[in-house]
């Protein structure tokens, strides 16, 4: 028999148990009225005592259509149900409810105890995993041991079509038998994770490439009953790779078949690329030099320094010596190699100029030959005038001698002297043009050269009432010119300018001599306010034996000038307006100038 104290203690224990058990407990009577509920119930659904259970659990005004409690009242069986209700905050609540009958002494069931466990959180997680499973941008499929697909996510279904119940190889590859190397099969065998690169066919027949990882669906299960396959589509990546490879091949071909020699070296100066054209040019073998420093003998140190600016691109013309000692004229474009703004080396594009130089020389030779050829016919013109002068001189002398006129002797002698001078001048000009002397460059400051020419003409110009003006920077850097040749050019141009002034109707004319250096290019400008040239004269200005100066010109001055300028890698430009004057400009890019034969101190 229990004592009173024992009963009290038992009462206390049951009450504690009722209140603290980790589930929601309510007791309902046959009218579905909650007669008691514990604290957990109260926390989730609020106090339900005295209210209908469906009001509390589901916020309904009438009993549920499928009422499990009613069935238990009728048959006395214990039931377990999953239910969806509404908590006291109005949120959907998922719970598992356990219904047990409470019998009285008569064997009737006046009450039912409902014990429910809240599974809302589990449900939420389940939903999230479901969304994750469906929406993740991978193909996910669950296979059974017969390689049948039991589940497949949305991305999978969209790409490969209806999959459930089909064999994986049917769906992935549209073929009738399983693959030779099957990662899922391996996982079924050893329970481990396997990875494979696969090629499949989509529902609309497109090739697709994916990286598949297979793993057991349940951990530590032996044997494995299901395998989950997660595949990452790499079709685009593969396409990019293919494009990259193609573009790489394309560039490789360009480099290999380029007529330009190509050398590339890293920041330490070690060669990492030599194309066949460079091999041919230098007479070297790539395999002997890759990884090595560029041999100093190939590109002269001085040239190399100029080709290594801190930034950017530079193009130079110069000479290289091949491995077997041949000197080759080349143009080299040098540019920095960068990868994501980091300097990783330098590349040289080398253009073999032998063919071009030969063509240029051939052209000059042809011009020279043509000039010499025409000389035979054209020289007659110049000589005729001189001859007439000579005949005149002889006539005057002879008549002076026979008639005893002494002044005629002097006059005739002067005429003879003058015309002999002219013929010697003509011969010199012809020789200068036809003989082709080798350029002998030395370092000289351009403005000093121009001043010499200015001094030479100043007095003569003054006598003709022509103002000669020198406008030149005072301290230009010395560059390599054949001093004598360039002097000839400038003398020709200034002499032409003075002649143009003499032919002009204007009473006072100015000739401006200018030189300057801009963007590493030396400019000489001789501008006059003389008679100018009309269209026809402009067209013929560089033609041999063309002269506007009657018997005074040989017609070789500008031709010789142009030849010299070209030999210095320069160009000659002119503008002229009839009646207003002409402007001749000699343009010498420093990079094209010849290399000085010896480093003379600038004059």
């Amino acid at each position, binding site marked *: 028999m229990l004592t009173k104290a024992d009963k009290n203690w038992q009462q206390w224990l049951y009450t504690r148990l009722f209140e603290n058990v980790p589930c929601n407990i309510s007791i309902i009577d046959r009218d579905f009225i909650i007669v008691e509920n514990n604290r957990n119930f109260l926390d989730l659904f609020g106090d339900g005592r005295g209210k209908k259970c469906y009001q509390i659990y589901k916020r309904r005004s009438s009993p549920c259509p499928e009422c499990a409690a009613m069935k238990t009242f009728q048959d006395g069986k214990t039931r377990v149900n999953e239910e969806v209700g509404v908590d006291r905050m109005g949120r959907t609540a998922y719970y598992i409810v356990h219904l047990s009958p409470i019998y009285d002494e008569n064997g009737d069931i006046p009450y039912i105890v409902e014990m429910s466990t809240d599974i809302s959180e589990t449900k939420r997680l389940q939903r999230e995993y479901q969304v994750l499973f469906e929406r993740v941008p991978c193909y996910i499929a669950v296979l059974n041991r017969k390689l049948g697909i039991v589940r497949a996510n949305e991305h999978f279904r969209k790409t490969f079509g209806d999959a459930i119940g089909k064999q994986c190889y049917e769906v992935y590859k549209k073929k009738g038998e399983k693959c030779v190397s099957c990662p899922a099969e391996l996982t079924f065998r050893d329970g481990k994770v396997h990875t494979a690169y696969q090629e499949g066919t989509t529902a609309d027949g497109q090739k697709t490439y994916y990286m598949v990882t297979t793993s057991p669906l349940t951990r530590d299960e032996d044997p494995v009953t299901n395998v989950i396959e997660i595949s990452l589509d790499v079709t685009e990546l593969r396409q990019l790779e293919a494009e990259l490879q193609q573009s790489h091949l394309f560039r490789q071909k360009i480099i290999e078949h380029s007529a330009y020699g190509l050398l590339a070296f890293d920041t330490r100066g070690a060669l990492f690329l030599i194309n066949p054209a460079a091999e041919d040019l230098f007479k070297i073998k790539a395999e002997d030099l890759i990884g090595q420093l560029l041999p100093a003998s190939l590109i002269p140190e001085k040239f190399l320094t100029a080709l290594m600016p801190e930034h950017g691109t530079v193009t130079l013309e110069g000479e290289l010596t091949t491995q077997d000692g041949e000197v080759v004229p080349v143009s080299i474009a040098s540019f920095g190699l960068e990868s994501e703004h980091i300097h990783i080396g330098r590349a040289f594009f080398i253009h073999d100029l032998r063919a071009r130089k030969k063509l240029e020389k051939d052209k000059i030779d042809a011009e020279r030959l043509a000039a010499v050829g*025409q000389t035979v016919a054209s020289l007659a013109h110049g000589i005729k005038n001189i*001859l*007439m002068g000579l005949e005149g*001189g002889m006539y*005057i002398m002879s008549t002076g001698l026979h008639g005893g006129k002494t002044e005629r002797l002097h006059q005739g002698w002067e005429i003879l002297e003058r015309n002999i001078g002219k013929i010697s001048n003509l011969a010199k000009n012809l020789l200068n043009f036809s003989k082709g002397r080798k350029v002998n460059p030395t370092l000289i400051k351009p403005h000093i050269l121009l001043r010499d020419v200015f001094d030479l003409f100043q007095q003569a110009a003054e006598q003709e009432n022509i103002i000669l003006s020198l406008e030149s920077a005072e301290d230009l850097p010395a560059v390599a010119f054949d001093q004598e040749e360039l002097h000839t050019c400038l003398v020709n141009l200034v002499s032409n300018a003075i002649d143009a002034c003499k032919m002009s109707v204007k009473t006072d004319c100015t000739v401006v001599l200018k030189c300057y250096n801009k963007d590493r290019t030396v400019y000489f400008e001789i501008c006059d306010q003389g008679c100018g040239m009309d269209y*026809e004269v402009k067209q013929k200005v560089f033609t041999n034996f063309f002269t*506007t100066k*009657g018997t005074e010109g040989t017609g070789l001055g500008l031709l010789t000038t142009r030849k010299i300028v070209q030999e210095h890698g320069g160009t000659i430009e002119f503008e002229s307006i009839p009646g207003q004057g002409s402007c001749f400009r000699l343009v010498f890019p420093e990079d094209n100038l010849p290399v000085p034969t010896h480093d003379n101190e600038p004059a």
Partner: protein
Amino acid sequence: MSEKTKKTVLIIDDEPDVRVYLQAALEDGGYSVLAAGSARQGLAMAEADRPDVICLDIVMPGQTGISLYQTLRLHRSLRSVPIIIISGMSAAQEESSFDLLKLKVNGTPDLPGPDAFIEKPINLQTFLQTVQRLSRC
């Protein structure tokens, strides 16, 4: 021959040596000679002294020889003065100007050709005979 009966020849040539030569030769041949070194000076002298014969170098700087020839041929009081063209022109010279000159030399309905054409260097005897022939007219 007195100064008054002497025929006057005007030489227009930019080449001083040629002027001196022709002047001496013509003076030795009994002519009174005027010499001009430019087209402008030549025209002024011709207008002032109306020579009996004009010897004109057609190739002078700036094509002034050709334009002077045109001026003289169309000149009211000088159009009948005989003109001897003296030229050092050769086939190698610039072609269009050569054609232009040929046209002028051979004459057009508007512009008669020259009375004589003598190429440099001149044969002195032929030159003097030509001057003599033309100065008689």
